[in-house]
């Protein structure tokens, strides 16, 4: 399941990536089950759906990633 879902997201059409960019998403069986701009929102949706194990990730905005510094 997990391998397929990760690979599916990686090869997903640009339209899908554009629709969900900047959002946290939960994927199961090659479908985006829930999405939200916050993890709090995503967990709230998942708790309602109770779908079992999902793959959670964030679809990044179309910018290049740079470092984060801790102080």
């Amino acid at each position, binding site marked *: 399941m*997990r391998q397929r879902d*990760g*690979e599916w*997201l*990686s*090869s997903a059409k*640009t339209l899908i*990536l*554009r629709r969900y*960019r900047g959002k*946290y998403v*939960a994927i199961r069986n090659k479908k985006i089950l829930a999405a939200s*701009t*916050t*993890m*709090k929102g995503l*967990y709230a949706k998942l708790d309602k759906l109770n779908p*079992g*194990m*999902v*793959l*959670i*990730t*964030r*679809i*990044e905005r*179309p*910018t*290049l*990633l*740079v*470092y*984060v*510094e*801790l*102080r």
Partner: protein
Amino acid sequence: MSSFAKKWMRQKTRTGTVYRPVIDLLFNEKTSSNLYSFIVDSGADISLAPRQLAERVGLDWNNGKRVILTGISPKPECTLEGRIHKVSALVPDLAFELTLPVCFANGNAPYLIGREGFFDEFDITLDKTRRRTIFRKMRAPRG
């Protein structure tokens, strides 16, 4: 098996398509278990995740070591507060459980795997030509 390869994740940016190294980690939450896809960031000192994951795995976010997260902008309004906790996660490809420090940010942070606690456990090859990462579990030191 003490190694595995993971394909890079395709992402679109305004400058074109980029491929980013990722790894899936399994976290046991209070009521279920879920997989999280982390970007492997060899330049990050420590791993990063949103605050809600800490709470989901049963940690009290406030009890962690307090840190301030800054990016390129030095503006105070562009900083985030974080807490560092040690947390256990499973690498499903090897059925290997590790404990690593993670900075849980009070905001919409990406999921990043940094060096501390992770690069100690694996030899990691970032194979950009083949767009894959090879993770080799290191043997425990003798003696």
